[in-house]
């Protein structure tokens, strides 16, 4: 018993050691970037980290905890992005007596309507806050809807079939957004009213803490959720769905719940992304950026561990950014033969996926089996029993 305990503690020590080490590497890279390029690059990285950690945490709930091969993460992100692009702006325009119907997203109208809404949002912080909350609510609702729709076939299909179907749904949604001008402007991206307009040039330094708070709230929620009996059901389903069924678990219901919750969170991430960029370019919402990168983040960080996911997102985002900003300095030999070093981003993505699968199957921070209650509470309960 004691040997087991000390082994456990040793493992735990090693684990926190790893987290510490990765955090140090991240901090060192951040410091390096700060001293070589200044604050703006740090802000960009931080915004991307918050948005993508929200999306990746939702992926982790569905794929890491529930074992659903979610290759269509982009579908929920797109739902959130389109909802934010299409609905709250129209509502604001309707209240202000501006064109708010089908013509709102037309390229000749949109660029005149949105600045007027922006002017109103910049005048009053209460309206801006209300607008932000409205955006998040609509994004979440759209995500829940699309998650529910996707979960219908998810009951029938198995592993690979399901992953491929979800991938196809995500691609199809992207083409719908690209062609249907009524929704978000089609090939001419519709602008999104900016709730952070009243901060002027300090916009990004306000976005970072706001998004960070949202991400932390989602992190806490997901941690509570996965430690609850519901989270245990998910893990049981992932590890052996037959035995879960035999134990009386309603597989269909649990899978549907997991997909709906995950899609809601991912859609909030998509909505935040659109608010940050200020326009909805449907063709930019690709499965490469919003499905495959989150998968790489999750696999590097550790499937089934939200802290790991955060570290994975942070590390890879920094590496991606470094390829972009140092491309002429470090990869001059490629540019000499006319090759754009930006493609190395794909190489990095592919290499990370392969290396993690082959050599680091559990990721940087492996999943921890946590007791439902803290240790002292368990001891108390045991003591009261005796």
């Amino acid at each position, binding site marked *: 018993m004691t040997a087991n305990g000390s082994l456990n503690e040793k493992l735990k020590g090693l684990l926190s050691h790893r987290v510490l080490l990765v955090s140090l590497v991240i901090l060192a890279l951040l410091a390096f970037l700060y001293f070589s390029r200044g604050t703006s690059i740090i802000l960009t990285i931080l915004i991307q980290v918050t948005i993508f950690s929200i999306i990746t945490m939702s992926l982790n709930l569905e*794929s890491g905890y529930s074992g659903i*091969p979610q*290759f269509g993460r982009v579908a929920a992100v797109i739902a959130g992005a389109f909802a934010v692009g299409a609905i709250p702006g129209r509502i604001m325009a309707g209240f202000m007596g501006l064109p708010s119907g089908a013509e709102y997203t037309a390229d000749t109208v949109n660029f005149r309507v949105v600045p007027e809404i922006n002017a109103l949002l910049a005048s009053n912080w209460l309206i801006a806050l209300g607008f932000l909350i409205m955006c998040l609510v609509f994004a979440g609702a759209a995500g829940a809807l699309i998650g529910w729709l996707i979960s219908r*076939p998810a009951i*029938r299909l198995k*592993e*690979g*079939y399901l*992953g*491929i*179907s979800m*991938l*196809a749904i995500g*691609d*199809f949604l992207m*083409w*719908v957004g*690209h*062609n*249907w001008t009524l929704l978000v402007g089609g090939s001419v991206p519709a602008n999104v009213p900016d709730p952070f307009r009243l901060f002027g040039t300090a916009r990004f330094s306000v976005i970072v803490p706001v998004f960070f708070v949202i991400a932390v709230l989602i992190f806490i929620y997901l941690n509570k959720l996965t430690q609850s009996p519901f989270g245990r059901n998910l893990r049981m389903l992932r590890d052996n769905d037959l035995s879960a069924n035999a134990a009386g678990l309603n597989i269909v219901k649990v899978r549907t719940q997991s997909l709906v919750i995950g899609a809601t969170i991912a859609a909030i991430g998509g909505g935040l992304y659109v608010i940050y960029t200020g326009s909805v370019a449907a063709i930019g919402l690709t499965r*490469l950026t919003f499905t*495959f990168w989150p*998968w790489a983040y999750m*696999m590097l960080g550790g499937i089934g561990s939200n802290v790991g996911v955060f570290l994975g997102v942070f590390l890879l985002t920094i590496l991606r950014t470094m390829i972009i900003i140092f491309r002429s300095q470090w990869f001059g030999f*490629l540019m000499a*033969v*006319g*090759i*754009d070093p930006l*493609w*190395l*981003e*794909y*190489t990095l*993505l*592919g*290499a*990370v*996926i*392969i290396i993690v*699968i*082959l050599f680091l*199957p559990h990721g940087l921070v492996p999943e921890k089996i946590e007791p439902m209650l803290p240790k002292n509470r368990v001891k108390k309960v045991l003591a009261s029993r005796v």
Partner: protein
Amino acid sequence: MTPWLASGLIYASGLALTAGSITLLYIVTRTFNFAVASMATIGFYVTYTGVTLYGGLPYQYYPAVLIIGAITGVICYFGLNRPLLNRKAAETTLMMSTLGYDLILLSMIQMYADFLTYTYKLFPRRVTMSLFDFEIYGERAATFILPAIAIGSLLLLHLFLTKTKFGIAMRATIENPVLAGASGINSDRVYLVSWIISGGMAALGGSFMSMAITGTPVMGMYTIPLMFAGAILGGLGSIYGGILGGLVIGLTEFAGVFLLSKYLGPWVLGYRMGIPLFIMAATLLVFPRGLSGIPLAKIIRNYYAGSRRGAGA
């Protein structure tokens, strides 16, 4: 021949080969091969490079396409698939590993396109391969040649699987790997050969498809949902089912777009991807095991039995 049918036939025979490649690999190794996307694009770029740098017709570079496709398959097998199969990795892990390989290949293709632009002053990012084609009876030659090549290579594959000793061993491994191993069949070699065949098929399919659609570095990436749709429509049970599924998906896409845009207007063109996906969903609702799962013999027998009964009454 109407233009949509000509392009549709070319495109569908390409899609049939890629869908067949996915199906073959799935039934042998349980791997959903994402890398088919980049293998297909590689096939297109091999023909493009040959035609622009060395001249001639696209068809004479197909042997090179097959070889390079097979090499990409072999690299993936030894570098990635074999260790994972030995480890008995989950289906999702196998799928993700080919995705990683696909992304590396994609980055290489993009770099190669940059290299061609810079060194040879070509325009490899938007290519209409049919410009390099010649005409037979007022039609593009590809309309006749490509389906013929597709059918020919399928016949070869069929003969290989049914008449040669190794092909029979391969089918035995597909049916029951444990039993095949017990009777002395080297499953390792079977996996290797299936990667070679499916790599060649995928690359050839890609170079076929580029004769019907615009060739771009992301050509494979945009069409991979359709390749998978073809494979799933076929039921992932037999190679022939996958090939048939790819054919159906390719033809319905072109026919559907042609008909719908005639009656509804040109806006349909943007949603062309929805048509084959809808066909797939509809078929799977009726036949959950895909085209190869349709009990054709039973249906025919029932039909004759029914008509006989009808005649008797």
